[in-house]
Structures are given as C-alpha cells and as structure tokens.
C-alpha cells in the first residue's frame, strides 16, 4: 500500500491582532486540516487542497506572518496510517450528529410531520455535503449518514403527500 502525499502548512502569525490567527484557524478547520503541532497543519495533497493552502499561505504573509508550504510523506507506513486514521476519526463526530439529526427528522415525519421538517432536513443534507467534501479518507460513518438522510428524505416526502398527511393543516 502506497503512502499518502501530504501538504504541510507551517506558519506563524503575530499574536495581535488575533483576528488573523482566528481566520486562518477557521479556514484550516473548514478544509478539514489537522494540526500536527501548533502552527503546523496537514492535508492530503490534491489540486484543491494545494490551491487552498497556497492562498492561505499568501494570507498569512499579507497579515505580517511567516508561512511555508511543504509536501511530503511520513517516514513509515505506520505513521502514514496513523495520520489517515486521525483524519477519519476527526469527521466521526460530525457524521454522528448528522445521523442523530436525520433520525429525529424521520421520526417526526412518521408521526405526522411539521412545518419545519423540510428546512431541518435541508440543513442536515447541506452539512453532510460539507463533511463529505473534507472527509478525505471515507470515515466509517459516512455511508450510514448518507443512508439515514435518504430515509429521512423519503419519510418527509411521504408525510407531505396529501394521502399521508395527518392533520397538520390550519384546522378549518
């Protein structure tokens, strides 16, 4: 099994103003990066992560900090595997929250629905797409999250059809 190619952003920003540090941290989090150390963030290499990290590097420099972007591989298969597993488990919590949310929506839909179910479900589906995009190594719960969302969508649709609707009208 080959080792993953990784990109490492090594950066340092002045302590003040803190907004730059927060912005960079947020962006790395949004990309699904993991910190190996303070100021050393890793992502698997592809065209998108490379581009995003290049812009982030520029941003750090524009904010008066220092940043270098590296690509490489850990020395051993074991270290590579450890990092891949860390990436996988970093997505688990979010998938679990989506699964719990989707189950809730499905149960409510089966009990007769509610006005806000579609919006709630849409939000969960959007969250799922965001997670999937930064889930570089297919975390264990991805498939389950996808299936539970599909089941919830179906339950909401069935709850919406005139025959299946259970008294959610205005009561005229």
């Amino acid at each position: 099994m080959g080792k993953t190619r990784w990109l490492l952003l090594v950066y340092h920003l002045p302590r003040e103003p803190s907004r730059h540090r927060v912005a960079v941290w947020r962006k790395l989090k949004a990309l699904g990066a993991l910190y190996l150390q303070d100021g050393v963030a890793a992502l698997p290499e592809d065209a998108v992560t490379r581009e995003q990290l290049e812009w982030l590097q520029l941003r750090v420099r524009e904010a008066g900090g220092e940043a270098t972007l590296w690509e490489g591989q850990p020395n051993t298969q074991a270290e590579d595997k450890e990092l891949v597993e860390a990436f996988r488990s970093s997505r688990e919590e979010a998938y679990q929250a989506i699964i719990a949310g989707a189950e809730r929506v499905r149960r409510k839909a089966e009990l007769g629905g509610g006005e806000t179910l579609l919006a709630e479900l849409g939000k969960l589906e959007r969250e799922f797409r965001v997670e999937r995009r930064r889930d570089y190594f297919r975390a264990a719960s991805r498939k389950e999250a996808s299936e539970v969302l599909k089941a919830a969508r179906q339950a909401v649709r069935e709850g919406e059809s005139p025959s299946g609707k259970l008294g959610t009208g205005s009561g005229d």
Partner: protein
Amino acid sequence: MLWATRRGCHVDRTACAWLIKRFVDPEANFAFFKDPEEAPEGAKLFDVAGARLSHHGEDCSFETFLKEYDLQDPVLSEIAEIVHDADLMDEKYGRSESEGLDVIVRGMQLALPDDESLTRHTDALYEGLYTYLGREVL
C-alpha cells in the same frame, strides 16, 4: 496579449479566462505553467500569488478583475458571487449555484486532457450562466 496562470484550473481561473476573452481582451492567448518561474516573458499573470490580478483581502481573482477593469455589470457581479463561494468555500454570499459549479468544473478538469481544452469548454458554461442570469437580473 498573452495571459498566464497556473495549471490545474478550477472555477476562479476558468471564470477569469472567460471574462478576459469576453470583456477584456478578445484576442487573448493563454499559457499555463506549473511553477511561476516558468511563466512566459511579458505575459500578464492572473490568479498567481503576488500578482495584481489575483486574490486580495477577501476577494478571489474574478472579483479583483471586475474592480481592476471597472466592469460594472450587475450580471457579472452575480457571477462573481458564485465564483467566490465556489473558489473560497466560505459561503460568503450563500450562492447555491456554487456547489453545482464546483462539482461540474472539478469533474471537467478530471475528464479533459489539459487546461487549454478545459477553458474552451468552460467558456460555454460561463456564457450560459451569463445569459441565464441576465434574464433574471436585468
């Protein structure tokens, strides 16, 4: 004029290439390089770190082009929002189109042999977006 940018174009660069041909320089030629050191002499660089026509502050390169060339077209401003959200993935404008555009251009990039071919194909995409949004916006 010769315009140059990095290889492996995605939404921002393909949209800029269309914008250049359509609104800035109809005679434009393009070169795509791997490393900025390989950029052809005298070419105008865009979407390259440190270039004038690139990211600035919160703006992506497409937004910078609109400002630099004073392109005050409301339809282009709408496209700029979509390109921004697809490029920076920060949901600044909450444009639902960007999610689809991101996937489509990413897929075309994988399916087509090089950036020359990619940008030729994406021209039709942005032209379509411009025509369609023109009907909604104007």
